[in-house]
């Protein structure tokens, strides 16, 4: 087993500029280069490179080298160094708590007992409660809840699944729960009325997408 560096990794994010760098890259729909990070966060390229290196070292971001889309053939130059969110998860709980073990046990029983309808009802009510105090900025509200939302045409896509491990082990149960949660949230939030939640799985993202009610789809 590898040593747990979660405390160090999370500790790195205390520094506000570094945290802004992390949040920009982790929440982006596609990999980002140093120059884009510098521009988005409002810092110099060398400072951006410094923070990006620290985040990669700690395992919070991952690096790939490739040519950017739209630039190919002669003159495309060297592959760019691009950054994205790392797969690893880091959780720090003081004092120690292991809610994930409890959640997995509960999910196994709910799944085995066929209690999805009850779970989805409860999730919808929880979503409605949260939606009532969500405020006018839907994207900010979703970001606060850990979804890392971004606009994609007439949709709002969610870069992060807050229930990732559980959703991988019990997809219909947990993705259905998340759909009901977001459905309730949209129904109760003043900023949610023009959006509909639906399952639209894509690799590496939350399985729920929000579709504009005014779109033609």
């Amino acid at each position, binding site marked *: 087993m590898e040593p747990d560096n979660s405390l160090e990794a999370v500790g790195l994010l205390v520094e506000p500029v570094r945290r802004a760098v992390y949040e920009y890259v982790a929440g982006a729909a596609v990999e980002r280069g140093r120059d884009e990070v510098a521009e988005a966060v409002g810092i110099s390229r060398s400072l951006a490179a410094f923070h990006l290196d620290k985040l990669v070292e700690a395992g919070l971001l991952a690096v790939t080298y490739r040519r950017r889309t739209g630039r190919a053939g002669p003159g495309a130059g060297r592959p760019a160094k691009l950054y994205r969110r790392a797969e690893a998860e880091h959780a720090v709980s003081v004092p120690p708590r292991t809610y994930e073990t409890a959640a997995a046990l509960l999910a196994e029983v709910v799944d085995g*007992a*066929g209690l*999805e*309808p009850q779970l989805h009802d409860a999730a919808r009510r929880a979503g409605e409660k949260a939606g009532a105090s969500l405020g006018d900025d839907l994207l900010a509200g979703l970001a606060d809840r850990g979804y890392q939302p971004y606009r994609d045409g007439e949709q709002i896509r969610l870069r992060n699944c807050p229930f990732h491990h559980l959703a991988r*082990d019990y*997809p*219909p149960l947990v*993705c*259905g729960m998340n*759909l009901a949660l977001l459905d309730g949230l949209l129904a109760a939030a003043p900023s949610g009325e023009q959006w509909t939640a*639906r*399952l639209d*799985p*894509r*690799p590496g993202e939350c*399985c729920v997408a929000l579709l504009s009610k005014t779109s033609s789809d």
Partner: protein
Amino acid sequence: MTGYHIAQLNVGRIVAPLDSPQLEGFTSQLAPINALADRAPGFVWRLQDEAGDATSYHPLDDENFLINLSVWESIEALWDFVYRSAHLDVMRNRRQWFERLAEAHMVLWWVPAGHIPTIEEAMDRLERLRAHGPSPEAFTFKDRYPAPQLSEAH
């Protein structure tokens, strides 16, 4: 590439006859979801009758007992179709259409590439899983076993 493909059997007992209004949400999605499977990455084969689905096969001599039998190039390809396509939404609603089964209702096993599993073979694998728990001969997504080595005689 291994010389093995993954076979999958799913069984379920519907809560009402297939042609009842209660099952409409299920039957109306059969054709589009089967079409989605047919063009999904890694799809190899699925059991189908003249209507293009598998709803006319009833190995337990029970009209409401349905099966779904297919072969895929890898477990990952099968998982991606089941849980990372429009099929997920069907799964989410399955309690509306299928009875809850106390025993295992899904089983996976490796077959040599090119082998088309029979219904008997598939039901036998399910029985093995139910009787002995997961093993290399009959397992689940949660308890996976690697494909046999090509050097092993089968």
